């Protein structure tokens, strides 16, 4: 029912001017929600904002937020113009406020990543089918790699219509852990049999659990999940959007910038992206949207 409101909603939002060309704000605000599906997480976007400001000749301000609802809503009300959002957050923002994706991150040479199923090495679990009746640990139901993609894959493979059925009929039990690291630890400690996490959560835990690489093995991977997006609000002036796009893409040629992006956000490069690439996430989201179990 949300989608029916969309057009009104966006018209209502104060956009500064009724110009069909879109607006050029005095200060461009970037909102950044780091994805939990990555092994290090950035705390600041300061260097990026400064560079962008130089390139665009407009003041750019960057803020890191810890909750993507806040970012989505901020983009909806035009308080944030450029959002660094994980795929799932982008899908919501696009559905609610017609936010458009312009760029995506490239990590480890790829524009996508995968989620992994991890089990204990000595568990005897060899295939996804062996998971029947076992306990499943995931971070939370809003996590693309931790929940949505693996659940969708299992539902298709074993013929369940809703996630609720999957959880109650296929699995013996589920454990919501709040984070990927916690899921992996839950399997390690024997509280659960399988965890679904980003690839590869084990590296974050190596320091605390030195033998984790051997103790836990990857059972399987999910389909490809699109990487984090750089998205802009609909109201932003097209020309400006193009300039932003060019500016970001130019960073690919800039050694120093790539290093910053890599150090802080694990990004190797930035690539163009279009809404279609996120169709797979949209489809998955649709599957869960109305029957997600409380």
């Amino acid at each position, binding site marked *: 029912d949300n989608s029916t409101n969309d057009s009104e909603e966006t018209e209502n939002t104060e956009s500064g001017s009724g110009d069909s060309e879109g607006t050029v704000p005095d200060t461009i*605000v970037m*909102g950044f929600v*780091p994805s*939990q599906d990555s092994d*290090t*997480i950035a*705390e600041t976007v300061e260097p990026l904002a400064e560079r962008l400001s130089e390139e665009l000749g407009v003041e750019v*301000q960057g*803020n*890191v*937020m*810890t*909750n993507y*609802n*806040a*970012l989505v*809503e*901020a983009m*909806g*009300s035009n*308080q*944030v113009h450029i959002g660094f959002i994980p795929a799932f957050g982008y899908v919501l923002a696009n559905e609610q406020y017609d936010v458009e994706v312009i760029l995506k991150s490239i990590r480890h040479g790829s524009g996508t990543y995968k989620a992994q199923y991890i089990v204990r090495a000595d568990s005897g679990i060899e295939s996804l089918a062996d998971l029947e009746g076992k306990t499943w640990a995931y971070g939370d139901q809003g996590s693309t790699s931790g929940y949505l993609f693996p659940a969708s894959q299992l539902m298709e493979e074993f013929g369940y219509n809703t996630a609720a059925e999957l959880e109650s009929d296929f699995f013996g039990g589920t454990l919501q852990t709040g*984070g990927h*690291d916690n899921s992996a630890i839950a399997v390690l*400690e024997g*509280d659960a049999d399988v965890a679904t996490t980003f690839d590869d959560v084990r590296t*974050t*835990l190596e*320091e*605390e*659990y030195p033998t984790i690489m051997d103790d836990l093995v990857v059972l399987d991977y999910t389909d490809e999940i699109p990487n984090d997006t750089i998205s802009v609000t609909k109201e932003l002036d097209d020309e400006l959007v193009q300039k932003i796009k060019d500016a970001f893409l130019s960073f690919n040629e800039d050694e120093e910038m790539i290093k910053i992006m890599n150090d802080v956000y694990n990004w190797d490069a930035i690539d163009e992206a279009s809404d279609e690439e996120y169709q797979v996430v949209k489809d998955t989201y649709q599957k869960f949207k109305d029957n997600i179990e409380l």
Partner: protein
Amino acid sequence: MEKEFTLPPKPKNSTFKLIRNIVITVLVIALYVWTFTSIDIDWGRAIERAANNFQRVIPQLFSPDWSATGKVALSMLETVFIAFAGSLMAAILAVPLAFLAARNMMGGVIISTIGKWILSAVRAFPDIILAILFVVAVGPNAFAGVLAIAIGSTGMLGKMFAEILEGIDMNVVEAMEASGANKIQILFHGVLPQITPEFLSYAIYRFEVDIRASSILGIVGAGGIGTLIIFASNNRNWSEMGTILLAIILVVTVIDFASARIRRKIV
């Protein structure tokens, strides 16, 4: 004194009271039985886990990551500013609400009940929703944090202020009434002098609490200490968590100390 004695029989509580007490006792016992039997905790495992993890977490926590000091200090300063502005705003907003909610101020149980309900409603609103609302209103920045903290604290401060108001010496109010002062004059000369020190002291106390109300600041992108906590936790960076903890303990202790002195002065 050796002689026989009989105590008079204990007075029977009225049957209503007796039944009430029995019902309450039974309910409380049932509540505990229900809680402890139905809650899903494997105590043994938890202890075992703690023993295993102790080495992993605690030593790191107590060997703070000094390289993060600059970053943490900056966030802390930011947080202090936000908390100051937010709790001052809350302290002001809470005053009219407290007068509304205090039983001895506006007359009428109805008004005070409504006032209390408003305060409860404000308090029941989760930080996360407040944060979203204020980000939408003013964008992701420290000021959204100020607003979120202001509203979040208003509920608690209003409740405490109302309790202080209910405890004032009404004789003084009567004395002023007897000298022909009107309501507003009584408010300024009879009521306010009695409550100001406590109000201030609670406001300062709330300032301390707000410095710890960190999660909300992470949500709004205010960059305060809350963001750092969440990131340190997501990255399982215990030594940085140690630094953060140390910073908070330090700052709050300093403020606690200062506020204790201020409070002693004003009360």
